[in-house]
């Protein structure tokens, strides 16, 4: 029975992947501009400290290895549907003004993004294809990645590692407060040439960001992300 199900699944995947009018490719998102707002002025932490929350400004970040794969289905020449499986970094370091002046105090986590997108290409036959698209982005998880880590340590007298970035606990606490799942609305504009496209995506949360709301503490309010995405098609059934 299990073998039968696996074979069935493989057939379904094959049908989707190699169906007519489909494209598969990779996405890379090197730059993120973000803004995170809070409903109170100060965040209170479990270690009894507090930080000023939210400067209500957009800040730009390099997101390291934010990358994923996309699957695009072209319904007509102009209309397309797209879904992705991304591992994207979410950076908000400077949104905590008290940290902004200190060195490398980033509040950063990664999530698995599964956007469901519908789009329209204005000039499918043109040299530079212009498209707009929009949809919903499902954001799952909150991974602290070693890749983005700003954790540093020294070696103490007993030759043990001693971490002196105490702020790591505060960063983790902020990440813990975020919902494991939330939904963003996405709007984007892109331009493509040959197999590569450059997109600018704007995202805003439409579901609650907080795991639990605390009336005596700052809770997350709104999240805005502007992401630069570079997409490269590696399998194109239409061209075949």
């Amino acid at each position, binding site marked *: 029975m299990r073998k039968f199900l696996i074979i069935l699944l493989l057939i379904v995947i094959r049908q989707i992947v190699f169906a007519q009018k489909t494209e598969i490719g*990779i996405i890379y998102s090197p730059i993120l501009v973000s803004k995170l707002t809070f409903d*109170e*002025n*100060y965040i*209170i932490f479990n*270690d*009894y*400290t*507090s930080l*000023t929350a939210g400067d209500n400004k957009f800040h730009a970040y390099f997101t*390291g*290895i934010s*990358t994923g*794969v996309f699957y695009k289905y072209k319904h007509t020449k102009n209309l397309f549907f797209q879904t992705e499986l991304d*591992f994207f970094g979410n950076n908000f370091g400077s949104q905590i003004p008290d940290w902004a002046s*200190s*060195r490398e*105090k980033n509040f950063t986590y*990664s999530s698995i993004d599964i956007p469901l997108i519908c789009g329209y290409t204005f000039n499918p036959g043109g040299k530079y294809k212009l498209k707009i698209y929009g949809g919903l982005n499902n954001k799952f998880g909150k*991974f*602290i*990645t*070693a*890749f*983005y*880590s700003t*954790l540093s340590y020294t070696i*103490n*007298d*007993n030759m*043990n*590692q*001693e*971490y*002196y*970035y*105490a*702020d*790591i*606990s*505060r960063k983790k606490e902020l990440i813990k407060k975020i919902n494991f799942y939330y939904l963003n609305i996405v709007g984007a504009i892109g331009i493509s040439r040959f197999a590569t496209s450059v997109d600018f995506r704007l995202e805003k949360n439409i579901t609650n960001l907080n795991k639990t709301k605390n*009336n*005596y*503490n*700052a809770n997350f309010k709104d999240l805005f992300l502007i992401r630069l995405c570079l997409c490269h098609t*590696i399998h194109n059934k239409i061209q075949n």
Partner: protein
Amino acid sequence: MKYFIIIIFLIIIVSCKKQEDQLVKNYFSCGVISTELLSHTLTQAVVKVRFFVLDKSNNGELIRQNILNNITPISSSAGNSQYTATFDSLKTITTPNKGNSSTAVLISDGLDQTINMEDYVNGIEPTVRKFLHSSVPNNEVLLAKVSNNNKPIEIINNGYTRNANEFDLKLADIYKNGNYTATDTLPLLDAIDSLIDYMNVKSTYSNKNLIILYSRRVSFLQNLNLNTLINKAKQSNITCHFIELSPTYTWENNALRTFIVNLNTITNGVYFEKNLYSTYYYDDGELPMEVLQFSGKLSNMLVGNFQCFESIWTINTTSTFNIGSVYTTSFVLKLSTNYEQKDIDIPFHYYINP
């Protein structure tokens, strides 16, 4: 292209590796719970000192190490007088239970420090917050701010509460936007006076405590008689505690410090001095852990049933002890921590009561 994708996925997997948890170094805090004059002559005073040494490696409880052979008295001098202390006895005791407490914390409008002294006072805000949180819900707490001449005291929120969360945001606001230095001491005395009146009326419990977190006023102008104020606190059965977060020599005005020391000693309150031996990387977000360890336990000290050391000291002077005066002596404790041996100074104040 296949290899490119494989490499990207490998990088993703590697980057998902969980970060290690931080290690925090061992620390301990020490201070004096109370001093009591057992007997005195013109040149000799016998003082009972209850003190604590809390150790992180023993879950913040009293240190396990036998300190009996590691106590050294210090001779001190003030003016032409020499004070020599002799250590008589040491035992571990549990303080009597005083019942639930009503405690007011009086803070000033900000840090009371110049900007370049931030290191000394880093952690005042978490110290206050931790004390408030560790007191409730069994005990009631009150936060008050010394304000200005027109309105000497500002009671934060609605006075006594058992929900410390109510103070969280306001406390952050005061310390983030407060003044570094202030030159005016007038409101302080008025504030203490008003607060004593307020506490006498509003306190639920007879175990009333006042913690003054106030320092470094440049000038000290008296609009109230200090002795009257101290007597008022004493007659109201209010115990005043002193948490000294910046070193004594940094006080701009010694008369102000002396007043707080006298108030603390005469009402038999807890005295804690932030030790200078500990170094923390404040820029990296580290906190003065020994201060926070103490502030988490302070509530237990106020309620009683607290395990501590009790020592008896005989202090001789080359001049005479004046009745009604407060004197200071200190002793040194040699502590073995995980990493090194440390000599800790523990000062105590005693009152030659009539």
